């Protein structure tokens, strides 16, 4: 495959753009890298106050339960959100030089992955803070990470290339992500959903990912490996389709931007 030799040859570009992305994000702000903790913590505080009041539930340690879903979700939603403008924002460079365009979505997803791994410390903090301890099943974390990474790459290919042609998608994606937030068991548990509607949630690959993280951190039991591999296979299929779409559309990027 051409893509692999391309990326290998331009690995320095991939590395510097990941570094620029992680380092540059908070370069000019006072709190710097701390923002990657403050932001989710503020969000957690809001949700931890609101959801127990408006949605009665008998989930033990609800805050921890929610944090296990919210942090991976933030990773997912910022990948999709940022993918929708990554090509447009880099239009200047795209119009000037040739480089493999797929570097842009790949470096975006990778830098978001690094941010996610760092912010997983928050999950650990809550799990330990509530005295729940850490189980050996945490060793499944990398597997879940890989599944989510592959899925994100595929979706990023599709979203980033299509938005060049239809800028509206940027706005549509915001609405769609909000909808999907409630269509994923993040602030509620899958069991509270009536049996006859549960299949809808099972169509959403993020359900399995969130359930996986929750199993290893919150329930401290072995995650459903079959489900995770299912997501990996789906992710690979989406990535292949996404790459074909991206590759077809990227030929006209310089003209459309």
């Amino acid at each position, binding site marked *: 495959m051409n893509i692999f030799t391309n990326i290998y*040859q331009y690995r320095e570009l991939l590395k510097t753009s990941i570094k620029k992305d992680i380092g540059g994000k908070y370069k000019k702000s006072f709190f710097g890298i701390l923002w990657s903790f403050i932001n989710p913590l503020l969000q957690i505080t809001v949700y931890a106050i609101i959801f127990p009041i408006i949605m009665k539930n008998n989930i033990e340690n609800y805050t921890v339960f929610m944090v296990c879903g919210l942090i991976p979700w933030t990773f997912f939603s910022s990948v999709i959100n940022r993918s929708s403008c990554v090509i447009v924002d880099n239009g200047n460079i795209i119009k000037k030089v040739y*480089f493999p365009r797929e570097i842009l979505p790949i470096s975006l997803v990778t830098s978001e992955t690094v941010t996610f791994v760092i912010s997983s410390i928050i999950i650990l903090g809550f799990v330990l803070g509530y005295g729940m301890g850490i189980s050996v099943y945490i060793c499944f974390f990398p597997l879940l990470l890989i599944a989510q990474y592959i899925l994100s790459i595929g979706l990023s290919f599709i979203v980033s290339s299509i938005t060049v042609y239809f800028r509206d998608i940027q706005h549509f994606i915001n609405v769609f992500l909000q909808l999907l937030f409630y269509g994923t068991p993040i602030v509620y548990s899958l069991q509270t959903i009536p049996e006859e509607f549960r299949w809808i949630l099972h169509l959403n690959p993020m359900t399995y990912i969130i359930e996986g993280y929750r199993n290893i951190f919150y329930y401290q039991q072995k995650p459903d490996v079959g489900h995770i591999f299912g997501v990996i296979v789906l992710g690979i299929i989406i990535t292949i389709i996404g790459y074909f779409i991206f590759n077809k559309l990227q030929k006209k990027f310089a003209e459309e931007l």
Partner: protein
Amino acid sequence: MQDDEDRIVVEHVYKTFNVYLDKANSIKEKVLFWNRNKKEKREVLKDINLTIKNGEAVALIGVNGSGKSTLLKLMTKIIYPNKGKITTVGKLTSLLELGAGFHPDFSGRENIYFNASIFGLTKKEIDNRIDKIIEFSELEQYIDNPIRTYSSGMYMRLAFSVAINVDADILLVDEILSVGDQHFQEKCLNKMKELKNEGKTMVFVTHGLGSAKELCDRAIWLNNGKIEMDGNTSDVIDAYVKRTT
């Protein structure tokens, strides 16, 4: 027909641009003004065929809008032809617009790394070249300052120095021999000659007929998207000058 010595092969290339008179940028506009979405097709290149061999220095000349820059962009793969095929053999660098990926808040040295990595160099390759690049740019004193403090001439000098030191087999140059002051221009010209003597393949888009004569042994005259004449530099330039004046 493929030959080992061929570096750039352009076969039956057509390029049309859609020129939107009033482009619908959103779905709303597309739906509401579906009949307003007029576009004009502008054929920029028509059936271009040419082969550039290893070690050749070729000048592309022609009036504005004749398709020179488009042809160069096609060769670098920034844009793709509607019909036909372009094959390039070997590492290719384009000096189309200088300073791609430059970030004003980072120092000159850091920007050398950003810029060179866009050209596909690895960290090690850049490490090996960095001294040469800085020396060529003559910016030793300022190299660790953020480049927003540079004058536009200094900026161009830095950008040019990176591009010229990439060590590509094929060099595509668009009208940039006017970088910096007289002294630096001469230096660039000499560097180009040096690269030519090393057997690099070069394509220039230029209006500077003098430097074209000095550097190139072949010239291609584009007119209205077609090749009007292809041959020895001075013959082509003479014919071109005769026609345009």
